[in-house]
Structure formats: C-alpha cells, structure tokens
C-alpha cells in the first residue's frame, strides 16, 4: 500500500523542529530513519498531518562520550554506531545487540533513538537501554528533560514523550570496569523481530537480566551471583512476565526460552566479567 497524504517539513535546526512540534503537537510525526514509521505509513497504521524530517540535522548526527555515557544523537543510524571501532570497548552490550537489529539494509537507515521512540516490546535497543539503565533526552520549546529507560517506555509502542517533545539523544552508560555483558535472542530468521531477546550484565557480584518480547516493555531483574537457585529464579521470572500465545510462538515456548537461554546468557556475561 501507499502512505496517506501528509505535509512534509524538513527543519534546518533543532529549534525549527521544536517550533513545528509545538505548533502541531500530536498531529505531527517525527521521522528520522523511518524504518518502522515508513512501514506504518505504507500500511496506513499512521496518518500524521505533518511529517517532520530530522534525518539531516547535523546537530543530532553526532555520537560522543559525555561523562560516563555514550550520548547518541537522534539522527545517528544503527550502522553509524556499529561502524565505531571503539563500540565494543565503550558500550559492549550495544556491540553485541546491534547485529540483531533488523538487517544490514535497515540498519543503514534506522536510528538508535528511532527504535527507542517506536517502543516495540521485542526490540533490542530499548532492551539494552533498560538493562544498562540508560536515559532518553527529550527537548521541547518548554525545555529539556532526561528520563530513565524505565520511565521512558510506558508500554506497547508507547512512551512518556509528550506530543511537543523531540528525542534529541539517548545516553548509554559506558562500560564499567570489570563488567561482563551478553546478548542472545530467538527469532524466526536472523534480523526478524525477536520472539524473545535476553540481555545480561554482570558486575560487582550482581547479575542484571533484561527480557524483551514477552511483557509490553523490557523487563529487568537483578540478583546476586551467589544465588544457587538460578533455575528457580528464571522459572519464576518466566511465569511473572505473563506470556501470551501469538502467531509466532506460544506462551510456553516463550517461557522455555527464558528458562533455557537465560542461564547461558547469564553464564556468558559472568565469564566476561572480572
């Protein structure tokens, strides 16, 4: 199918983009890489009055280490980030997860912040942001605020972004000394939406495990290394997430992935930690 009719605006500055969002509110839709939004437009699941294209904004095209975070601008593509030679050192979990995000051809256009904005429950980047306790930076003509990952995503395809706010950056915490990371997912085909995705961070005697693809947003649990009843912990987590049957997998299969793949991901993260 083809997109419905909309006006198209390409601001030259972030301030111009914010002014358009202030004017149009929820009748405006921001497009960066458009790898989710264009499909939704083509399927007519989205029908904005005005499309605000931020993909050429220089100010949002940079990626920089600020303090203890890698701050990724809203126009930075997933491929740009993967091309960074120091990514595996700076934010190892992103280096592990990004190859699972869509296909090479969609990563060339899709942005990191766009993935976060879309808020698909099975998607890898919101899972990484939540597992690492990162933040989303939102700006409007009213000012700027930072939301923790857990505050930002509020459910299935929904976030705490206000209609006049632009996501200007995502902040992923830099690797802490001695931390270990691991990522794994089960999908029908590499690059397809994950049926279940798992991210683990091992640090300072604690394990954090994030699960995507079951609840309406990434779910995070944390416990100390010493717990010997890890199978019981994962079994309880699998049931807690209240999995549902759908076209792609049964609830039981999803629980089985958490119970079966969970221990491997945790062991791998722990083996990388020191």
């Amino acid at each position, binding site marked *: 199918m083809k997109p419905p009719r909309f*006006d198209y605006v390409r601001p030259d500055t972030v301030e111009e983009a914010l002014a358009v969002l202030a004017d149009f509110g929820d009748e405006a839709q921001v497009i960066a890489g458009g790898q989710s939004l264009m499909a939704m437009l083509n399927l007519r699941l989205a029908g904005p009055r005005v499309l605000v294209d931020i993909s050429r904004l220089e100010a949002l095209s940079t990626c920089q280490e600020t303090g203890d975070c890698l701050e990724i601008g809203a126009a930075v593509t997933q491929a740009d980030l993967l091309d960074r030679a120091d990514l595996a050192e700076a934010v190892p979990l992103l280096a592990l997860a990004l190859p699972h995000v869509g*296909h090479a051809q969609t990563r060339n256009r899709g942005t990191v912040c766009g993935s976060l904005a879309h808020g698909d429950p099975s998607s890898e980047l919101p899972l990484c942001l939540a597992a690492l306790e990162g933040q989303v930076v939102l700006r409007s003509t009213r000012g700027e605020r930072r939301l923790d990952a857990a505050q930002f995503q509020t459910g299935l395809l929904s976030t705490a972004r206000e209609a006049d706010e632009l996501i200007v950056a995502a902040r992923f915490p830099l690797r802490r000394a001695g931390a270990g990371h691991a990522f794994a997912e089960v999908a029908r085909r*590499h*690059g397809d939406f994950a049926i279940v995705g798992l991210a683990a961070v091992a640090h300072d005697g604690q394990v954090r495990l994030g699960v995507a693809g079951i609840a309406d947003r990434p779910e995070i649990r944390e416990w100390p290394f010493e717990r010997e009843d890890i199978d019981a912990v994962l079994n309880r987590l699998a049931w807690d997430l209240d999995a549902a049957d759908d076209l792609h997998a049964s609830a039981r299969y999803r629980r089985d992935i958490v119970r079966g793949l969970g221990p491997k991901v945790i062991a791998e993260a722990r083996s990388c930690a020191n």
Partner: protein
Amino acid sequence: MRELNGAARHRIGFTLNGRAVSGWAEPRLLLTDFLRQELGETGTHVGCEHGICGACTIRIDGRAVRGCLYLAVQADGREVQTVEGLADPDGALNALQRAFRKHHALQCGYCTPGLLMSLTDLFARTPRPSEAQILDVVGGHLCRCTGYAGIMAAAREVAAEP
C-alpha cells in the same frame, strides 16, 4: 526550512547512477514509485512495501537501503544508485552480474535487483567478505524461488576473485 504541501507535487532532483535527474513528487510518494513511474527506471522492483522482502533495495549515498521505506522528497540532492547502474554503458554485465548468471542465482528474477544492490554495497565496503558477512547481507532478502544456494555461490565467487 523546507516545507512541502501534501496536496501538491514538488520538484525533486538527485543524481541517479551518475547523472542528474529530476521529476515531480507529492511528499507521500515512495522513492521506488518515483524511480519507476516518474523516471521510468523500472529495474528497481517493488515487493512487500514494508521493508521485509528487500526487492527494492538500492544505494543512497553509498549505503544499501530499502527504496520502499524512503520518500522521494527525502532523496532530494542525494546520490542514488540502482541496478541500472551496474552494467557497462554498452550493456556488458559486471563481475557480480556475470557470477549470478553463471551460478543460476536468479530464477524468476524478482528479488535479483535488490540482491545485486545489497551485494554491490557489501563488496564496496568489504572487498573480501567472510561467509558470515555474506549471509548477513543475503539474509536481508527474500527469494521466493528459494534460490539461495545459487545466490551464495555467486557471492562467494566474487568474494574470492583476485
């Protein structure tokens, strides 16, 4: 700030396979439809129109992207490369196209333009890709004739060429 009315057609220009082209597009017009219907360049195929199948893959500014997830107005001023740009002007096939023919890497041919552009992109960036790198790129395409073995054989041959 560029502001385009959704009900009107606007002048769009970019470089296509090395030459300047232009045409008219409403903001909602997909780049694939602009290429095929406005410019008459029908080498780029349209499959699923939601980014899954890969038939419409083209290169923009030296990156393989889905043509169906790209608006014509977004391509304004860009460098676009399509399958029409692969062969020599006299029609002689390039090495990748010859390998596709040799290994029967196309059956119905519908997915072929997209695969050729994705693999062109891979070889431009990584002249000697590994098996895993080839698989990653080919994995972004659907061939409903399921001719993947031939496609992989063709890609491997080009990867091994001196």
